């Protein structure tokens, strides 16, 4: 059984920081279907629409009947482990630094035979569960896991290469005074984070929950105003080398529904303020903290691992009633995707959270269902532990996401009503 992850030792400042290497990331275009499923935590393989044969490795035409109608579908993820090996040598730099490494052959109940990373708690033969997870290259890989969860299974070294578990990691929560920031900080502490740097954008304002949180010795209050480049740079200079996980909870939502469109106002003050926090704030944080995280992407068991953006489902489909804010969310998503590409070279994952409306003061007039900040925080922890990168939280977000796939024009027309 997996031994619980030991508390990382204090970093030896004399030792050179090991730079990040990546597992092989090249894939055919068909194989990126696996990456699409893994990014959202689904288990999908191609299934032939004509003869129902499940395909693996991904193909252009069915290996059985040669039909070109191959659809990505959720399939039974169970199989029999029929052979295993432990690599004690590899020509690949990434694996060379992580040996020994266990892989195996799994005969899936759904048909195909797959080569997968094999969890240390899997017996040498027998039934396993397959999951699709992103590895440090950002591409999907198959992990064979024990049929039932085992204690500490997320602590296994191979599995941790596909996840971003907060355990023993130090987390910067950029706005710790918002309801969301407080919920995220609490969830991180519950998930085993070693430290939380809790950003305070408004030292002049008293928030009782913030004051309670900072009594915890693991929580360190820090001044941070994402609209102020000096403030961001000062903090990065102070703690930039210790941030393993960054959750950007700084968010700007003002006005009531209907006042925030474009024609409803005669100025762009609201739009500019939203952009200042939601877009430029993200860019300032990225420029200040990104380089440090990139440098520490393989620095011990608590290396820098993920950057979390809390966006909105309306980054994908604007809510005209909050048009200026929706535009800032779309811009923030675009910036986040650029950041994802820029951090990909070191394996630091950008996780984008797309919630529906959140139950907070500026959504007072929005009808339910509304998500509690705690529910969003829980979804973030799950995403990090499971190793996914795109998370749609709550019924509204999931519905809009599903309908965007079905008919994005319908979503456009109906949200406008």
């Amino acid at each position: 059984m997996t031994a619980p992850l030991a508390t990382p030792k204090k970093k030896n400042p004399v030792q050179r920081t090991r730079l990040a290497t990546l597992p092989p990331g090249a894939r055919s275009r068909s194989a990126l279907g696996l990456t699409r499923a893994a990014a959202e935590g689904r288990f999908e393989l191609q299934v032939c629409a004509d003869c129902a044969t499940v395909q693996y490795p991904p193909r252009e035409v069915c290996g059985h009947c040669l039909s070109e109608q191959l659809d990505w579908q959720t399939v039974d993820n169970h199989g029999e482990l029929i052979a295993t090996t432990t690599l004690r040598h590899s020509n690949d730099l990434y694996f060379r630094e992580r040996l020994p490494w266990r892989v195996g052959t799994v005969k899936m109940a759904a048909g195909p035979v797959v080569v997968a990373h094999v969890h240390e708690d899997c017996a040498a033969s027998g039934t396993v569960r397959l999951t699709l997870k992103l590895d440090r290259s950002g591409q999907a890989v198959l992990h064979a896991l024990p049929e039932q969860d085992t204690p500490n299974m997320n602590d296994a070294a191979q599995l941790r290469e596909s996840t971003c578990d907060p355990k023993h990691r130090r987390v910067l929560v950029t706005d710790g005074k918002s309801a969301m920031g407080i919920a995220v900080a609490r969830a991180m502490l519950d998930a085993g984070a070693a430290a939380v740097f809790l950003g305070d954008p408004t030292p002049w304002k008293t928030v009782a929950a913030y004051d309670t949180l900072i009594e915890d010795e693991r929580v360190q209050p820090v001044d941070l105003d994402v609209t102020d480049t000096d403030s961001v740079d000062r903090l990065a200079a102070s703690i930039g080398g210790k941030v393993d996980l960054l959750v950007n909870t700084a968010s700007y939502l003002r006005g009531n529904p209907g006042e925030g469109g474009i024609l409803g106002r005669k100025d762009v003050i609201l739009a500019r303020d939203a952009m200042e926090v939601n877009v430029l704030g993200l860019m300032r944080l990225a420029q200040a903290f990104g380089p440090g995280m990139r440098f520490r992407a393989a620095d011990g068991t608590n290396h820098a691992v993920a950057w979390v953006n809390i966006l909105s489902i309306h980054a994908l489909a604007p809510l005209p009633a909050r048009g200026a804010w929706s535009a800032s969310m779309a811009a923030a998503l675009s910036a986040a995707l650029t950041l994802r590409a820029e951090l990909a070279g070191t394996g630091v994952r950008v996780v984008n959270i797309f919630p529906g409306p959140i139950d907070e003061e500026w959504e007072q007039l929005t009808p339910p269902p509304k998500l509690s900040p705690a529910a969003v925080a829980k979804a973030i922890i799950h995403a990090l532990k499971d190793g996914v990168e795109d998370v749609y939280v709550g019924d509204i977000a999931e519905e809009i996401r599903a309908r965007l796939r079905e008919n994005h024009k319908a979503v456009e027309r109906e949200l406008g009503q």
Partner: protein
Amino acid sequence: MSARPRLGYDGVVVNLPVTIPYARYSTHSAHWWLGRALGELIRGSGLAKRDVDGVCVSSFTLGPDTAVGLMQHLGMSPRWLDHIPMGGASGVVALRRAARAVQAGDAEVIACIAGDTNQVDSFRNTVSQFSRFAQDAVYPYGAGGPNASFALLTDYYMQHYGATREDFGKLCVAQRDNALKNPHALMKKPLTLAQYLAARSITDPIHLFDCVMPCAGAEGYLVMTEDRARALKLPFTRIRSTIERHNAFPEDPIQFRGGWAMDKDDLYAHAGTGPEEIDFLETYDDYPVINMMQFEDLGFCAKGEAATFVREHSFTLDGSFPFNTSGGQLSVGQAGAAGGYLGFVQAVRQLTGTAGATQLAKARLGMVSGFGMINYDRGLCSGAAILERGQV
């Protein structure tokens, strides 16, 4: 199986086995190695360059060129040209293509050549771009080469058929013994079973001496009519039968047999002989487990009984079942695609009485088998040929 009878290979022969001595690393390109092999064939045959009117090429490191570019590089103008990217099956498959072309009159003399260079990074580059399935579904799992794929099927084979490391070791030790008599072998030191067993693990259950050493080198032979061979006074080898198969048994969850198992009856029937008549066997031996499968699938013993078969024979040049008489890739080295020619060229040596210190006392009928291309989880190409000493 086809109901139509297959034509024999009457009047077509193989001769002039050529090996360009291997080197662990080479600063030359594949063109150099292939060019030298062709040069040896032309000089050795006494033919003019223009008389070699067919060429068949196999190489992994010739890129960006193909056989076509190589022809301009070497100043050849053949009227028949083939490029066979079938790795370890290339030697047998090249023979099948060339023999039929000569038989049909599409070419008179065909030079079959295989060669690769091995620069310090060649092996890593070759395996990282080996195939689409490997790129998508094997390379991301850390193997960086065929070791892991073979480790998995060796693990399965050992579990199911009770073969042990000692059995694999016996084959490796016997091959090394043979290699010590082959001046071309890169491995010059004897190997004991104790050394084999004590070697470090590479990818369980594959240990150091189960792996071939990548190197540079080239191999070649000529295919021509028997009349031409007699006119040139070149000792020759007849072709009794050949088979090839690709992607055999796709329904097997893991490879425990190769395409030979589908075609061996045809192979023997076409040759009018049986395994008991074969004087020696040259297999494709990138890992010892594949030798075991070839013993079984080519009918030298029943499925699952190769371990017992190994315990009953010695596999050395003077032993009860002469096998991989050059030392095989495990002891000679794996010169890329030339590895797929090594056994073939050695068999032609045995059957033309030119095998030097490795020459067997009795070598009338020999079998060569080939195996190649771990595209995803298994080797896809298999082939075999039964060759017979010709009378000059």
